């Protein structure tokens, strides 16, 4: 089996968003392409803690959340593990924000809603680069 297909069958993901609807939508899309839910977090602090405990293959991180925001949680996770694969998922998608996230180590940036995003391609790209 090609490496890329194998990766898509086995990845474990952590979903970080303060919105239950947003978490459910992401979990549905990612499970549909073969991912396994490692855990859910509702804030930046929660995400950092759960990353340390769960060590998922991929993190899908919202930006605007109460308390620690997604960009700061990205920073903290990258500080903890330089090999972490974090994908930012935000309703905001202006250029400065995208540049900042990529500069801080995010592997990709997705703009909500996620229903029509080519998620399999994005996951494959992030897992293999």
């Amino acid at each position: 089996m090609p490496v890329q297909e194998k990766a898509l069958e086995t990845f474990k993901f952590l979903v970080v968003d303060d919105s239950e609807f947003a978490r459910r939508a992401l979990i549905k899309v990612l499970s549909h392409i073969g991912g396994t839910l490692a855990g859910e977090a509702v804030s930046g602090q929660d995400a950092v803690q759960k990353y340390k405990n769960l060590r998922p293959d991929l993190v899908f991180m919202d930006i605007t959340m109460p308390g620690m925001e997604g960009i700061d949680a990205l920073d903290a996770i990258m500080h903890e593990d330089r090999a972490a694969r974090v994908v930012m998922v935000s309703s905001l998608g202006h250029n400065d924000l995208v540049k900042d996230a990529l500069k801080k180590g995010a592997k990709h940036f997705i703009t909500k809603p996620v229903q029509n995003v080519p998620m399999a391609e994005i996951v494959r790209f992030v897992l293999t680069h």
Partner: protein
Amino acid sequence: MRLDYLNPIVDSAIAVLTECTGTAVERGDMSLNQTASPTRDVAAIIGMAGEVEGRVILEMSRDTALSMASQMNQQQLSDLSPLALDTLMELTNMIVARGVSALNDNGFTFRLTPPMIFTGANLCFFSNLNIETLAIPLQISAGEVTLNVALRMNEF
């Protein structure tokens, strides 16, 4: 109100509603109101502060709110539960955030407040912002939603 503030938000509302519901959105005639007070049972509101200030309100009937939240969750929701209300807040957030991202790329800087939602009959909001409001009805399969946009350039 300048149309360069309004258009990205209306375009975003049509695009996000189309993507989230999977059905076409029909835009009705725009009207001008003196206040941003909603007239229906469910109103989700997001404020803006910075170089551009004001608010955007998405309002709809209870039936339309339930139908849309059910559609977006792909499950029948029978009341305005926390999940249904969260869905409508997230919908409003996606609409406004995508619209203001376009404004931000055009050089305006500002911050959004977290979305809030109000439900009940005879809702009435008061504010001293004193900005005229443009109301744009949008017809979707779940019913009609109205986008109320009240924005202005802040003179520092």
